[in-house]
């Protein structure tokens, strides 16, 4: 690609100026139209300009359309699952779906669709992943923004980018082929495909997101505030913990939420590594139990479910829960991001 070429031509103001001068010296009518036009004078230009703008706007709306289509189709396919003959039945189904502990979608006699274990499973592995990844991610972000010299920062950035770039299925492969046997041998777990395994890998995957967003917001806090703190005799740790982090708290919260979204929406790793047992872990602190998060439930069962069955619609209902969940978190993170932008704009 000729990346260089346009820059070269553009970044030579002299030649441009020359051209302007030469054009001025030759009063040849190169421009057939005057420079400033009212709509009446250049109707074609006016119309094409607005048409162009309209076209661009319509194309930009594609992402809006995509979001609406996604919501519409996922919800539309979920509705037949919830819709009963009466309102009471609908409520009963919804209650069963959200609070039922039994997931027997293909049972012959009395199929049950309790998605609570899946919802809890998602929240569970995500929470554990955050517990593991937030400290590491924040410390890394602090190191990059406040401690590391420029050269080290330049060296670390690709590491983080590569961690973020490794495909999730490769992480899943790693989880099931390398981590699971290791967990089994080292800790004597009865199964290596469990919540801990999935959470560990999810933590690795969430760390890059947390670092990049948190580092941005930490860097956005200016030098002055740090220098003021140092001038008061505070150590670096105190400055960071008591001054910088509180000042950057909204960005850090946004970072954590984005990391959380990455973890909760991840499919392949939890599918391959979480063990797929449809249970609520009990006791809750026992990480060696298998769980079955929402994403994994969909991935596992959709491939073998016939279109148009109740099971099929139920899986879409889980997708719906997932969608609403991430949408909500997205709004929250946007709220915090907007606060950062406001502050930046204010300064």
């Amino acid at each position, binding site marked *: 690609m000729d990346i260089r070429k346009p820059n070269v031509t553009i970044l030579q103001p002299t030649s441009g100026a020359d051209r302007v001068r030469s054009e001025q010296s030759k009063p040849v009518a190169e421009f057939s139209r005057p420079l400033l036009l009212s709509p009446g004078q250049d109707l074609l230009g006016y119309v094409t300009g607005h048409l162009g703008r309209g076209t661009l706007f319509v194309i930009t709306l594609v992402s809006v359309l995509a979001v609406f289509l996604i919501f519409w189709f996922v919800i539309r396919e979920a509705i037949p699952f919830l819709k009963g003959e009466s309102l009471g039945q609908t409520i009963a189904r919804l209650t069963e779906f959200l609070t039922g502990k039994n997931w*027997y979608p*293909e049972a012959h006699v009395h199929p049950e669709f309790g998605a609570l274990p899946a919802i809890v499973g998602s929240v569970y592995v995500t929470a554990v992943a955050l517990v593991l990844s937030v400290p590491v991610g924040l410390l890394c972000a602090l190191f990059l923004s406040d401690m590391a010299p420029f050269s080290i920062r330049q060296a670390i950035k690709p590491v983080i980018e590569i961690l973020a770039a490794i495909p999730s299925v490769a992480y899943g492969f790693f989880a099931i082929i390398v981590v699971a046997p290791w967990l*089994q041998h080292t800790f004597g777990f*009865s199964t290596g495909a469990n919540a801990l395994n999935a959470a560990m890998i999810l933590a690795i995957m969430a760390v890059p997101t947390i670092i990049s967003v948190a580092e941005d917001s930490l860097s956005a806090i200016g030098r002055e505030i740090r220098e003021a703190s140092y001038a008061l005799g505070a150590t670096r740790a105190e400055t960071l913990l008591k001054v910088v982090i509180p000042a950057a708290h909204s960005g850090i919260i946004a970072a954590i939420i984005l990391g959380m979204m990455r973890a909760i929406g991840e499919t392949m790793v939890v599918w391959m590594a979480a063990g797929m*047992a449809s249970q609520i872990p009990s006791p809750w602190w026992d990480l060696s139990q*298998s769980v079955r998060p929402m994403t994994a439930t969909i991935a596992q069962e959709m*491939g*073998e479910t*016939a279109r148009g069955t109740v099971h099929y619609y139920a899986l879409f209902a889980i997708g719906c829960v997932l969608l609403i969940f991430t949408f909500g978190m997205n709004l929250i993170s946007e709220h915090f991001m907007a606060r950062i932008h406001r502050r930046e704009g204010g300064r």
Partner: protein
Amino acid sequence: MNTRFSVSRIGWVGLVIGMLVTTQAVWSAEGGLIVDGSTTVGPLGDAFAEAFKTSHPDIAITVNKTGSGDGAAALIDGRCQIAMMSRFMKDTEFTKAVVNKVFPVAHTIAMDGVCIVLHPSNPIKELTKEQITKIYKGEITNWKELGGSDLAIVAISRDTSSGTYETFHELVINKEKMGPSVEYVSSNPQAHARVKSTPGAIGYIGLGFIDAYVKAIKLDGIMPTRQTIAKGKYPASRPLFLFTNGYPKLGSIVHELCVFHLTEKGQEIIEAKGFIPLTNY
């Protein structure tokens, strides 16, 4: 300037037309033969397709292993010409098919046994249906209770849409609902892999997947072998089917695939994949 503009405009128009034409070509292109369904029959489907590749190089056969339930649905929707199924069609599926003007015909191609497998380090050699039911319901959670070593039981099941699950569910655990701690995997090899790597595991897989890394045990006192399964002695054995819409036209490729199990090569493949050919006993 004007000419340049029109040149580029012609270029754009050309591009759009070109895209339309290619799309049209793409639209009218014909797909090959699609075989869809059970992951148990899948390896047979793959092997048959492989054998057909040499004799019919011009026919592309796609084998999708998505489960018996989806195989039936695909046949009913016309998404495939042959559905591989490890169980017979349910009456609901039949009704739906007939409503859709699809008339399923079953071709039995081989026999298979659902074998209960343990990790080879497990001293247990035999279990009864009742014991297995209790394990899968979560009432027995340690091998100690069955006379084995002190080790937590990890029960592994195929997911609920698969034909293997249905056979197990119906013939072994008598349609009882499984407990919540049962882990679900989505294919036979995956079940094999989980049992192989987990000392406390119990699982169930097709006879074709038994090897040195997992140990098949007696069910109700009967060992799953080729003889016991073919003779119907083993309690969890089942025929494997191909379903077509109506009896395929004689001499067509679909027909050839459906009767391939009768040829010598077909039987060899069935044996090589660990199933039991129908005409051998």
